[in-house]
Each structure stands twice: as C-alpha cells, then as structure tokens.
C-alpha cells in the first residue's frame, strides 16, 4: 500500500477549514504567551479549549474535574509557555499531553472517590464502545502527525480503535480495560494486538 503522502502535505483536500499551517499559528500564540501577552492566551484558549476540554472529559469523565483540568492546564501554559519550544512536539500534542497528565493526576488523586464513580464512567465507556460510527473528530487544529494517526485509526474496527484509545488516554492495563468494559480478558488482548498490528502497518507508510 502506498502511503497517502499527498494528503499529508495538501491537507486542504480532505481537511477542510484547516489553516495553511495550524502548528505555526499556535506556535506564534505560544511565543506571545511566553512574552506575557494575555490577549494571546485568550486566543489560544478560544482556539483550543473545546478540543482540550473534550480530551479532559474523555479521561476524567466528570465535567467538574474536566473544568479543573482545563483551568490548571491554561494556568500552567501561562506560567511555562517558554518551556514549550524545548519539547519539539507539535503545539496541540504538547497541550494535549499537559491535559492528559493533569487528568491522570486528578484520577489518581481521586482514586477513593473514583471508586464510587466507576459505574458512571463505565456506562459512558460501554456506550462509546457500542457506537459504530467513527467519532466526529474535528481535525482543524490537528498536527500532521495526528492527521496521519487519524487516517490510520480510521481503518481499524471501531472497537479496536476505542480500546486502544482508552488504554492510552486513561492509562489502563488489559485487565483494567476488561473489568471496566465487562469483556473477557482474551477479547481485550486480541482487539488491542490486532488493532496495533494494523496501526503499525498503516503508520509505516507515512514515513
């Protein structure tokens, strides 16, 4: 299979509404935030908050917690945007990483409370898994790297895609996933193994 390299460099075809280079736009905002420009922080928030809030919600499950994650993340960005340049990651990936680690911290800190809320979370998970349509992901801001992953994930069976996403985003083991999703351990392992195999083959074509 020949990789869709053209799609990577000419995003306008499939990825409508995308800026010429969203990474550059976000990068310049981060540089201005690092120079204590609060208007730039607002612009960055307007551009990314929905995306990041969606991510936080996906990890922590509770709106109040997701709001806290978002707030803490933007304060962290305000205080340490200057560190971003050293990370070498695309801006959205860097922001996503901040949100994910905040969210995981929050989940771990609330381990005791989480026990009580596990049911809600699991219902939510099971629902996601039951769905068949691909997630309505808006890739307007996605980095090229994310765009490639998005394309490759799109080729997986929906359930494989979901368990892989959950394993990563929530930092869950095979066993934890099986428990949460009320699935046999063997099934979870198979989905993840097959999904990752396919993902690897597909991603290999993007380089």
């Amino acid at each position, binding site marked *: 299979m020949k990789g869709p390299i053209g799609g990577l460099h000419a995003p306008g075809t499939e990825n409508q509404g995308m800026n010429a280079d969203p990474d550059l736009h976000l990068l310049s905002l981060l540089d201005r935030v690092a120079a204590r420009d609060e208007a730039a922080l607002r612009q960055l928030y307007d551009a990314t908050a929905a995306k990041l809030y969606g991510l936080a919600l996906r990890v922590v499950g509770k709106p109040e917690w997701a709001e806290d994650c978002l707030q803490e993340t933007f304060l962290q960005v305000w205080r340490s945007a200057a560190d971003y340049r050293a990370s070498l990651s695309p801006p959205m990936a860097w922001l996503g990483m901040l*949100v994910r680690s905040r969210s995981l911290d929050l989940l771990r800190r609330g381990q005791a409370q989480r026990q009580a809320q596990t049911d809600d979370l699991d219902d939510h998970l099971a629902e996601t898994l039951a769905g068949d349509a691909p997630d309505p992901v808006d890739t307007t801001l996605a980095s090229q790297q*994310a765009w490639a992953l998005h394309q490759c994930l799109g080729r997986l069976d929906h359930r494989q895609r979901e368990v892989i996403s959950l394993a990563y985003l929530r930092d869950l083991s095979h066993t934890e996933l099986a428990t949460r999703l009320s699935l046999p351990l063997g099934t979870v392992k198979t989905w993840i193994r097959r999904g990752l195999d396919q993902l690897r083959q597909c991603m290999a074509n993007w380089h």
Partner: protein
Amino acid sequence: MNIARHPELLDRLAAAWAVGTLHGGARRRFEQQAREHATVRTAALLWQERMSSLTELQPGVQPPPRVWTRIHQQVQAERVLVQGRAPVPRETAAPWWQRLGLWQGMGLTGAFATVAALGVALNLNSQLGQTRTELTAQLQAVQAELAAMPRADYVAVLNDNQASAAVLVTFDPVRRQLHLQRVGSFQEAEDRSLQLWALPPGSGPRSLGVLTRERLLQLATDPAVVNGVPTLAISLEPRGGVPEAGGPTGPVLFKGALIQRQI
C-alpha cells in the same frame, strides 16, 4: 535477545510500550534495552510521539464560560502579586526570630525593670510581714498584666488602587492574632467574601483567613506564616473564601507592605 536486530518485533514492542499495554517483566526488559540501544530507544520515542497524537483526536466539547473567567481572574491576580512583590523593600535579611527577638528583648527589658522595681517595693513590704506566697502571687499578676497588653509588632496599611487606605492590619505574635480594622467604605456584596493573603517571597500566596463583615476583627495566625512576609493582600472571592492551594481567584482589591514596628 537483542530486539534491535528484529525490526518487526521491535516495532510491535515499541507500539505496545507506548500505548501502555506492555506490562511487568516484558516492560522492564524493553525499557532496559531502550536504555542500552539507541535503535530501541528511537523506536520507543517514535511510538510515544505517535500515540500522544491520540490526545488531539478526541471530539471537542465546548467548556462552560466560567472556566475562562477563572483562568482570567487567576492570571490577573498573579500579575498584581508579581508587580506588588518586586518594589517592596525588605527591612532586613535577618531571619524573623532574630528581628522578633530584638523587639521582644526590648519589651522584656521593660518588663524586668517593672518587676525589679516592684521587687524593691515588695522587699520593703516584706518587712511588714508579707509571705513569700503573696509575693509570688503579685509577681504572677504583674506578668499576666504584661502578657495581656495587646502588642502590634507588625503593621500594614492595605490600600486600594487609588492609594486610599482600606484596611489596617496589626500582628500580635504573643496572642498569635492578626487584628484588622476596616477604615474605608468598601463593603463586599452578599455573595462575596474578602480573603487576606500573605505574599511570601519565592513561594505562592498563603491564606491568612477570610474577613467577616465587622469593622474590627481578629484572625488566629501562626507567627511562622507572617514572618519575613513583605506584603499582604486582600482579594475578592466567592462567599466563604477559596482554598489556599489554588491561590486567589478573584481580583486583588487591597494590598500593602507589612512592616515590623521598631518604635
């Protein structure tokens, strides 16, 4: 086995490692090899980067507007604090207990003089047959009276942004109390509270307590929290105040230098 020589296996392990499903001994062995072989390390980091893009691919959800309001308020508060911190001259770099010691020493000297004078008088009185027990009781009474005198070792006048005085603060290290006197006309709304903060250099604001609505009030305070603090500030918060950990969330209305009284 050196997995660096088996590209297919290496790729599979690196992907599983990055997604977090490689566990136990397999994970430890993989990480060990990654530390030893650059090829393994490169594969691991490549997959870590790729997987991190999953954070970009979640459906967006519009957060409620209050999230930005909170971020904005906190950024404002930090700006005020940073600006407020810089120009405040420190009286001295000596540790607080030394500075406190000097002041307390002066106070104690006075106390000893009083007690000594009293002692002379009592010595005279003893000739009139007073017992040692009575002497002790009188000494204790004097000491209690001395201890009961309010002290104001630290003083701050907190101003609003028009430089008008709003709150007078004094600190009594013996009673471990801050005394506050509202001197301006400001009155917070029903659903708001004023919260007093110490702004120690080099660390986050520390909450000293939430003000009640009275003109005069006291807040119990550990001297260690006040020592060496150059600035106090009062922020406007939701009723009942906010937890210290998050710092002020509302605007800082009043602030001023905390000065150790030496006169």
